[in-house]
């Protein structure tokens, strides 16, 4: 289904960003390869959301570069993003999933097929005709995931997708994220929930005060962090 060429690896080089005179990212560099989910963790205010928006292309870098292996093509989105608080259109559940597909130039029949498949994936098929804004918080986030997944992105950015959800809704979202990762979608997710990072991460980027302090495979990071900041964060100390 996917074209043989790939947009990965993504090379991030000395990426900087400032807003209102305040430097938020101070030269962040790393490479993202295909594979299991990369989880960006760090305390609130570390610059996680800004980093994701820069990678997704919503913010222009203040310095440095975000380099995909192949040039991004807006007509066929290869990467998508789900926000902490998803913005659902004032339309039905089904129409919400179909909307970005229509923008991507996908014909009505293929659109319906993909939308149904995506709703099935997140378990919202039964609510397809309901007004999207009347769904519960967890259902709304699952719909946002379906909307992004329907595009068949190679890379999916998730910005604190469970930050405002209760445990059972969080679990449902995590299951969907894991299922997408198994299907080969590269997940790049921010969270400040260490437990969630443990459950989902293949590798971890620990961001602290606008810098990548540590980058390691999850198995090593959670057992033996190399930096005192990461160790303190994992022990639940208040780092900032």
């Amino acid at each position, binding site marked *: 289904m996917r074209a043989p060429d790939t947009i990965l690896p993504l090379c991030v080089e000395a990426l900087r960003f400032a807003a209102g005179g305040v430097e938020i990212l101070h030269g962040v560099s790393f490479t993202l390869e295909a594979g299991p989910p990369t989880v960006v963790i760090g305390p609130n205010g570390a610059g996680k959301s800004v980093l994701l928006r820069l990678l997704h292309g919503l913010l222009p870098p203040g310095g440095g570069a975000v380099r995909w292996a192949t040039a991004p093509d807006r007509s066929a989105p290869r990467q998508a993003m789900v926000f902490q608080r998803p913005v659902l259109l*004032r339309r039905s559940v089904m129409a919400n999933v179909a909307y970005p597909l229509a923008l991507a130039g996908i014909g009505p029949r293929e659109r319906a097929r993909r939308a149904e498949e995506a709703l099935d994936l997140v378990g919202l098929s039964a609510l397809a005709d309901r007004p999207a804004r009347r769904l519960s918080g967890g259902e709304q986030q699952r719909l946002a995931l379906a909307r992004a997944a329907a595009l068949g992105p190679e890379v999916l950015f998730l910005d604190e997708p469970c930050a405002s959800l209760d445990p059972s809704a969080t679990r449902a979202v995590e299951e969907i994220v894991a299922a997408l990762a198994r299907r080969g979608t590269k997940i790049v997710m921010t969270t400040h929930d260490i437990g969630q990072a443990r459950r989902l991460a293949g590798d971890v980027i620990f961001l602290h005060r606008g810098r990548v302090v540590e980058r390691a495979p999850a198995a090593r990071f959670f057992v033996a962090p190399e930096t005192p900041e990461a160790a303190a964060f994992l022990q639940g100390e208040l780092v900032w």
Partner: protein
Amino acid sequence: MGDLHAASTAALGLILAADPAVMGIVGLSLQVSLTAVLLAALVGLPLGALLAVTRFPGRQSVIVALNALMGLPPVVAGLLIYLLLSRSGPLGPLGLLFTPSAMVIAQAVLIAPILAALTRETLSGLWEEYAEQLRSFGAGPLRAVPTLLWDGRFALLTVLLAGFGRASAEVGAVMIVGGNIEGFTRVMTTAIALETSKGDLPLALALGLVLMGIVLAVNVLAQVLRSAASRWAG
């Protein structure tokens, strides 16, 4: 007081009997104002949506001008259209002056800025909410216009109703360009003005009651739409 009582009774009689003269006037009023709203909406809604999503030098001035035009006195709108349509005016050869078409044009000119300004105000909030998400989908401001118009549909219906209320209640513009010709360009407001000055209070009152009934119905409709909208907006 006796006059008022007698006039009211006669007015009710005219309405209940569906007096042909009254019905003709009411029918033309509705036809003119509804057509005017439709025409004004074709221009005002996209224009307002465009102003909500685009940023360009001079945008603030356009918005101020639009807001000022919301208060355009109907007689001035009527005068401008009169000058355009009069025999020596640039559009004189069309022969539209003193026809219902001229009244439609005058009312459309009067309410298009109102629809545009209210649309911009309504959709600005929606755009603020949607902008980042739509950009994430790859939709720029221009592509967002139809999206916002559709997603703001309930609020925009109340905008249209506001425009219709303004159109059906104004008297100055249609009086000037329509000429209040009986059976041809006489609408409720111009008839009320004329019949009152002639002293035919029952007819004036009957039309006034119908006009108020229409305004009331429009507001009930707006209220119903607002609650429908909140059901969807969640």
